[in-house]
């Protein structure tokens, strides 16, 4: 009997150790980013760093406000374009689609999540950017191009989570509504969607998190200029692309500034994930 207990213990503690290593990786990365980035923020001043308008590392000027604005605009654009499509798609899959069709559509949408982001970026550069340039004007590399690409990239996240949250509703709700004489659409609109509200909200927040964190695809279509944009056809730079585009050559203070950008990004993502958790738990 003792041997058996011992035999059970080994895998238990082994798996515990491995699970711990995943957590310690998170802790290590976080600590490292903070150690590297905080001294620069302290040197430049928190207010100057966050609200500074000028980013010129070679001149020792580190202001990331235009990038924060860029991140917000690109993400909001992606939500405006992507979320309505995603919600319609998830309602269709959960309520209207015949079984065979949804068996086909669901894996296809999952496949969308598996396409590497560099492929999205390349596709955007070759098709979307020239299209915007030719039909809407401007250089084509723009907030609009970034938003379109990100809207497509957040589709799988938003669709699958909101579909699951609609499907997870107790069948009683639907049956009750039908029994009261509501049509299928009335049931969806006034019973199912309000009931699945928290799950849908969480899916949108997680989608936003994905959009904020995306780097490669956005570098390729955004133009990366560090200035406050005046229209959606202007180029912009996001926090992630700032790190992605400049890390190759950065050293010393410049590198610290990129880590400091990472801190801001980490905090934004933490807030987003926490609010998604909150949305899911609040029933």
């Amino acid at each position, binding site marked *: 009997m003792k*041997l*058996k207990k*011992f*035999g*059970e213990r*080994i*895998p238990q503690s*082994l798996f515990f150790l491995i699970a711990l290593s995943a957590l310690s990786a998170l802790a290590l990365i976080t600590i490292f980013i903070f150690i590297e980035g905080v001294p620069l923020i302290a040197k430049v001043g928190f207010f100057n760093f966050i609200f500074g308008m*000028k*980013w*010129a*590392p*070679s*001149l020792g000027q580190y202001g990331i406000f*235009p990038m924060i604005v860029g991140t917000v605009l690109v993400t909001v654009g992606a939500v405006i374009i992507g979320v309505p499509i995603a919600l319609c798609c998830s309602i269709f899959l959960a309520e209207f689609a015949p079984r065979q069709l949804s068996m086909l559509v669901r894996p296809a949408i999952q496949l969308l999540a598996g396409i590497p982001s560099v492929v999205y970026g390349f596709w955007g*550069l070759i098709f979307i*950017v*020239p299209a915007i*340039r030719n039909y809407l004007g*401007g*250089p*084509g*590399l723009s907030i609009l191009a970034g938003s379109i690409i990100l809207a497509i990239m957040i589709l799988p996240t938003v669709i699958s989570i909101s579909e699951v949250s609609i499907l997870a509703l107790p069948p009683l709700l639907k049956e009750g509504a039908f029994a009261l004489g509501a049509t299928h659409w009335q049931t969806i609109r006034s019973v199912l969607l309000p009931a699945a509200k928290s799950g849908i909200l969480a899916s949108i927040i997680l989608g936003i998190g994905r959009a904020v964190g995306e780097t490669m695809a956005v*570098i*390729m279509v955004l*133009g*990366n*200029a*560090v*200035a406050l944009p005046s229209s959606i056809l202007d*180029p912009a*730079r996001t926090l992630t692309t700032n790190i*992605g*585009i*400049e890390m*190759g*050559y*950065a*050293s*010393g203070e*410049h590198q610290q500034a990129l880590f400091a950008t990472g801190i801001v990004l980490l905090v934004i993502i933490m807030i987003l994930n926490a609010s998604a958790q909150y949305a899911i738990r609040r029933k």
Partner: protein
Amino acid sequence: MKKPLKRPIFTRAKVVFVLIFSIFLLIFLTGCMRNSSGVILAGSTSVQPFAEVLSEEYMVLHHGVTIDVQGGGSAAGILAAQSGTADIGMSSRSLAGDETKLWSVEIARDGLAIVINAHNPVVNLTTEQVRDIYSGKIDNWSTLGGSKDQIHVFTREDGSGTRSSFETLVMGKTEINPRTMVEDSNGAIRQLVGDDPDAIGYISLGLVDKTVKAVELNGVVASREHVIDGSYGLSRPFLFMCKNEPTGLTKAFIDFTLSDQGKQILDQQGLITTGITP
């Protein structure tokens, strides 16, 4: 009683598997870190592809020698040479100030071409006009004899050796307008300028192809010949740097780079080695 006893044996097999796997991993990792006879190069990503071709050729000729070429940028290359973390640092800009204390050798020169779309009617720009375009003073092609469209200006990211050469050679003390679009490679700029009829950018002269047009600068065609005779002003040195006078393998590799065979390789790759003496 027999059945429950079988479970721990099964898990033990798993444990053994995990242990063996981690031992393999360890062996693999130490294998990566082994220190054989070799030379490490680090620095400018503009020089990197050429250094890679040289190192491949050198390793074919000399078996058992490993030449490891890493990127990182000119600034990182200079730092690596100063600290000795790399045997040879690579830079695509001239050394300045304290950096000149390093032992350095010019392995080739590279021209910097101002490129526009192949369909753009503009042929010639003055240095001053290029500066005004990048500072934002000129923002329409009509001022320069082209279409009535806005100019779409592309630059390289802060820290790039190509950008710092461009800033020294063209911009002087003037700052590049922050509204300028930033791309992180020669290839990206060539692709975008080739696609956009209103775009302007600057890339390495060796990388100019049919998709883009290199403008004449102050009436001088951007060509190898004009870089060699000095009439085309935009050129920059490609440097190898060492902490001290190189010896042994490092010296052998640098000598190979400066030999006729090495020069021929660099020439074929589009660089200019005329006037380089070992």
